[in-house]
Every structure is written in structure tokens, then in C-alpha cells.
């Protein structure tokens, strides 16, 4: 018999659970055994919907909702019992909690997607490169910390710790992939975490150096906030790998969480220290060749200090008023 169409039943994540070949029109969808497409879904009526060719030989399909309480959801629209609507080809519609999609014979198919050996090879190199960069960075900062002539035993624990830490982190997210997508994916998560750690380390360093070079302490102060933002972005990227279909929602959610965290951090710092940032002054003193701005006479510093007086006096007054309010 000629196969006229294929009805695909989809799971929650939009993947095809099973497909039912269509050999005649109309096709009935429902829980009843005599339906062409039988759905095992308690939110579906025995005869939930019918899909038929459009009348008068017009192209396209028509979806008619049967005797159903829940109706059918089609592209943000809810069709109630007895109504019909044009069903565009390849568009998902929902009966109860089940998603369905119709593919018609003679549809135009998208071109074959290449497996991307080239791209995959590149990704492998990026991953290996990033891992090597992280190990190198860790070793370099240990080298800075250790006394000259320290043996390899001073490096080993942290290097191994970093390696295992990153691997366990990626593996846990990989398990998340297994949960949401059905297969364990390690390297995409590894790439994500390596990328963000490297970004964080280099930004921290750059900001500290720039704060010194330009004598602009704010650059150093904001690194705490930046850390929060990067951590939020890291989590958002991991979750996006798990739920590629919900990328936008994930981005918005973590963006909002990040703003909230930065807001709370700033508010707490303001409450405890009467300043937005925890850091009181920029402390990194790199080699002097990096200094780009001129040193000024002492009087310039004193000119900067003088305005503190009004700020401090105001703060002292506020503190004092709060104290005496508390005493009362």
C-alpha cells in the first residue's frame, strides 16, 4: 500500500518516540484501539482528533478536534472540541500531553547534515589546547608561589586536583546530558568549564594589571562582580547544552539570577562597608615597567583625600543616628 504520510509521536524533549505510517485519509488519533494512531495518554480522549486532506483537493491538511475536554494545542492556539484548523506540514500539535507531527509524502527534505569530521577535529584540538592551557596556568601560578628550587612534589597535588576536579565537574554535567538527552556527553561540558575557568583567570589578571598600569582601582574592585557574572554564564552554558531547545529561557533565567546575586553582593557590601565593592584598595603590584601613568606630587593625593571628610562625617552621623535609634 502506498505510504501517504507518517505521523510522528514525540516525547517531551521533541524527539520522535515512534512513527505511524498513514495509508489512508482521514487518520484518527485517540486512546481507543480502533484509532489509527493510538496514544497511551490519560489526557487524551478515546477519539481525540482527526487529520484529513483538505476538501476540494486543496493542498494541505485539516485537523478536526473530536469529543475531547482538553482539545488540541496547535502553535500557541487551543482548539476546542468540534473545531477544525488548517494543519501546516511539519508543525507539532499536542493532544493531551502527547506531541504529534505529520510528515507528508513528497515533502521537501533538508539537505543531509554533515557529521563534521573537520569541525569535530577542530573541537578536539580546542579542548586539548584549553586543558593544556589550564594546566600550564596552574603550574605557572604554583611556580610563582613556590620558592626557587621547589621539587615536582610541590606541583603534583594541585595539578592532579585541578585535573580531577574539572573531570568530575564535566562528568556530573555529562550525567545531566544522559538524563535529559539520553546519552552521556563529556567533552562539550569539559569545553565549557575549561573555557570559563580560563576566561576568569585571564580577566582577573588583566584587570589587576590594568588597575595598576592605569592607576584605576575600580578595575580591580569589579573583579568580584565579574566572577559572579562568569559563574552564572558557566552554569547557563552547561544547562543550554542539556536543553538546547530552551536556550533562550535558560539565558534569561541565569541572567536574572546573576543580576540578583550582584545586587545582593553590592547591597551587603554597602550595608557592612558603606561601599559597593568588598575590596578596599587595589593591591596588585606587578613589575614597575607596567606602570603607564605618571606619579604625582604628594599634594595631588592630599587633594584626593580632602573630599573624604564630608563623606566620613555624613557616615558618622548616620551611624550615630542608627545607633541611638537602636538604643531607644
Amino acid at each position, binding site marked *: 500500500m502506498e505510504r501517504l504520510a507518517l505521523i510522528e509521536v514525540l516525547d517531551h524533549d521533541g524527539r520522535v518516540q515512534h512513527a505511524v505510517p498513514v495509508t489512508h485519509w482521514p487518520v484518527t488519533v485517540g486512546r481507543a484501539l480502533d484509532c489509527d494512531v493510538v496514544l497511551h495518554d490519560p489526557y487524551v480522549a478515546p477519539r481525540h482528533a482527526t487529520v484529513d486532506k483538505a476538501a476540494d483537493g486543496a493542498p494541505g491538511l485539516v485537523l478536526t478536534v473530536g469529543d475531547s475536554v482538553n482539545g488540541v494545542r496547535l502553535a500557541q492556539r487551543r482548539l476546542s472540541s468540534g473545531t477544525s484548523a488548517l494543519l501546516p506540514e511539519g508543525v507539532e500539535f499536542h493532544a493531551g500531553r502527547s506531541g504529534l507531527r505529520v510528515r507528508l509524502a513528497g515533502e521537501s527534505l533538508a539537505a543531509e547534515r554533515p557529521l563534521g569530521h573537520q569541525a569535530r577535529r577542530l573541537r578536539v584540538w580546542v579542548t586539548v589546547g584549553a586543558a593544556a592551557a589550564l594546566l600550564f596556568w596552574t603550574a605557572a601560578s604554583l611556580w610563582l608561589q613556590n620558592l626557587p628550587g621547589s621539587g615536582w612534589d610541590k606541583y603534583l597535588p594541585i595539578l592532579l586536583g585541578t585535573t580531577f576536579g574539572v573531570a568530575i565537574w564535566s562528568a556530573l554535567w555529562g550525567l545531566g546530558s544522559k538524563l535529559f538527552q539520553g546519552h552521556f556527553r563529556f567533552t562539550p561540558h569539559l569545553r565549557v568549564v575549561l573555557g570559563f575557568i580560563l576566561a576568569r583567570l585571564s580577566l582577573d589578571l588583566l584587570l589587576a594589571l590594568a588597575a595598576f598600569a592605569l592607576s584605576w582601582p575600580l578595575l580591580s574592585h569589579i573583579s568580584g562582580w565579574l566572577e559572579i557574572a562568569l559563574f552564572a554564564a558557566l552554569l547557563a552554558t552547561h544547562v543550554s547544552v542539556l536543553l538546547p531547545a530552551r536556550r533562550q529561557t535558560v539565558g534569561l533565567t541565569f541572567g536574572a539570577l546573576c543580576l540578583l546575586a550582584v545586587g545582593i553582593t553590592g547591597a551587603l557590601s554597602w550595608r*557592612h562597608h558603606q561601599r559597593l565593592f568588598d575590596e578596599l584598595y587595589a593591591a*596588585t603590584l606587578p613589575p614597575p615597567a607596567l606602570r603607564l601613568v605618571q606619579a604625582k606630587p604628594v599634594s595631588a593625593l592630599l587633594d584626593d583625600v580632602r573630599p573624604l571628610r564630608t563623606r566620613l562625617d555624613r557616615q558618622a552621623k548616620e551611624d550615630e543616628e542608627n545607633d541611638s535609634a537602636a538604643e531607644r
Partner: protein
Amino acid sequence: MMLRYRLAGIAVTLAVTGASALGAPSARTAPLDLNEKRAQSESTVSPSAQRAFETARDKLLQVRTLLKDQDSQASVGSGFIVGSEGLVITNYHVVSQIALQPLRYRLTYTRAGGSGGVLQLLAFDAVHDLALARMVASNDAATAGAEGDVDKRPPSFATLSFRPRAQALANGERIFSLGNPLDIGFAVHEGNYNGLAARSFYPQIFFAGALNPGMSGGPALDGQGRVIGVNVATHRAGQQVSFLVPAQFAQELLERGRDAQPITGDVYPELTRQLLAHQALLVRRFVAQPWRSAGHARYRIPVPQEDFMRCWGSSSRAETKGLEYERSDCEMEGAVFISGQLQTGRLTVRHEAYDGSKLGALRFARAYSDSFRNEGFGAGPATTQPQCEERFVDRDGLPLRAVVCLSAYRKLKGLYDLSVLVATVDASTLGVQGRLDARGIDFDNALRLTRHYLDGYAWNGSH
């Protein structure tokens, strides 16, 4: 900075508060058996100690700070009668709680005979840690004893007299300190006069004798029973190293406050006035002194004179493979006691000279940054949180990174705490980091001290 240690030896004041009184029983269980003790006391207490105690006995008081609504004592000290109308000298730190929080505490006295009453605070000299109070006989059963002074007539008290200023004591002369140590009972402690304590900003008598908590505010007498000083502090690290406020300051306070009305209101304006005068004198004297040399080959580093500061030095071990340093810590011995939580009016100056030639430029930069980062700004409840300004400062061609942090006192209006951090930034494996701290100074003096301190840095002449 990176390498810190606590200097031994800080003078502690002698009022007994709840916390220190808890420690008292252990002092009692010192490993001396009773017979030994008796033998010792028979041999060391001289007839003149007996005489001193007998003359002073009825002029001695225990000064107790009680909670307002119950008879639990918050702190105890001692005092002595100097005016026949019931005027009493004690330490400011003995009465600080009542002065600062008159709604929470009350001040009472108990005499050696057991009688007692209420004390009214008339005047204080926080800088010298003295206070003047007046005894008010009281019928309060909780404080008054059975016998003596509860009388309607204005009573007339026997007083201790001051040794005339012109008659200087000789070093080694025997003197007697009296009070009520640890709330155990009135006692006389014998010791020797050793002149004035070195490197004290205000003169303090160095008494080689034991002072114990609870004796604060008690008198120190010469052989004729005349007051030569007031018990104030003991050295935490030393043994029998104690300090007395010279009697002249008590005399001056007595003259100034004899006719004063009892203090009932806010004492902070008066404390502020005294601290402002103190810091004006302190900063004037400090800035007038030239800096000493730190003996560094490359840099001129400001090290204060040791007139009223004490400097300790330390350095890295010779065999170190890492950062080499030499460190100097200078601080004033005493501070002005304001309350148990607040002592102020003092200066500290310190520096660390680093040599990272064994480390190389990158490792040095890291260690040097860590040291610069590791600075505390202990903003207490008395001050606002610090606010800082920072810059590269040029000192005759020597570039410095300088950070100036200030916080303001909440109740002592017009006083500030200043910290100036300095790091030289001219060499890749060599540098000096220094810090000046001034507590309880006015804003103009903060600017003056900052300039004075930064001006102390330069290339060394031989550079």
C-alpha cells in the same frame, strides 16, 4: 603585611571587669603553700608598710560600678580621699562605664571600715586616666555598711595629702601602693620608685612592685604617707613592672574640678575636647621630629625617633631561599583609654624592606603584592568603615604607590583614624612597604601626618 608578630609587652589597665575577675581564682592557686606564704610575709612586710597602710586605711575606697537595677558589679577599682568634702581621686578607666552609660550603671564606694555610698563623677582627665568624684553618703542598704558616715551633717573626711612637687623622689626609694586587688580586700604593696618610664608620651612613674587588677585608682605613697602617684597599669609581659600617674596631674584635676557640678549628661563632647588637645600636642611633637634613617642602601625610609615610641626590628633568616626582608615596628606604648572597646590617640609606624633578588621579578611581584594586600583595617564599633584614596606619588623621583584610608569616630566628632600604606614601585626585585597609623586625630592633622610620612620616603643620597 606578610610577616607579622605581636610585640611583647603592652600595658594593661587595672580595673577588674567581669571577664578578668573570672581569671582571679587561678591567681589564688599559685603554688605557694600557706606556711611559706606566712614566712614570706613576715620577713618582707616592713613596719613602714604597716604604717603606710594604717595612715591610708580610712582614706581608701573601693570604687564599684554596679548595674543600674541590681547589685552585680560590672567592674571594681580603687580610689582615695583628697578633699575633706568627700572628694575622691580614681582612674578614669575605673569610672568610664558610668561616664559613658549613666543610664545603665551606677557608681558606689565601699570604705575599709565597711561603710559606703554613692559616688558622683565631677571631672575627668582621660588623657592621664584620672577622675574626680564626690562621695555622697547613702542610706542604701545594699551599699552602705553598718557603721560610720551615714549622717545628715555635711561630713568632713580625713584626706591624704600630696607630696610637694619640689621634693623629688630618689630612684630606689621605697614606695607603697594601696588598693583593693581583685576585690579580695584592701592591701598595701611595697615596691620601689624607679623614675619615669622611658619612652612614655606623658610622664608615668615606673613602680617596681606588683599592681593587680582592682587596684586601679588607688594611691601610691612615699614613706611619710604622702601621695606620689595613682596606680594605673601594669606591664603584661613583665613582673613587678607597674606604672603610676604622677600625683601632679591628680592635683591639677582636683584644683580644676573641686567646685564642679556632678556630670550627668553626655561626656563625649568633653572627651572629644580632651582628645583634640591630646592629638594636637602629639602630632605637633611628632611632626617636629626629623625621621631617623633605616640604613637602607637604596631608599630613605621614615623611621620615627624613639622619644615616645618604641621600635622593634626583625629580619628573614639568613639561609632563606625566598624573599629576604628587614622589618621595623614602632609604636607608642600607651593609648588613651576611652572605654573597654576603645583606646585611641596613638601612633604606629612600621616598614618592611624586601629583597627579592633570589626570587626573580615575577615571583617577587607576587610576594610583594600579597604583602601589600595583607593589611587589616579593624574598624571597630566606634568608627565608620574606612574610605580610601590611592595614587602613584612621586617623591623626588622615587615612585610610590600610596593608599590613604580614613574612618571617622561616631561619637567623638571631628576625630578620625588614619592609615597610610606605601609601597615603592621603582624596582622589579626590590621594594619597601610601610604603614603609618594614627588613631584619634583631627582631619587637618591626618593630612599633615600623611604628608610628613610620605615626605620621609626618597632615594637614598648614595643612590
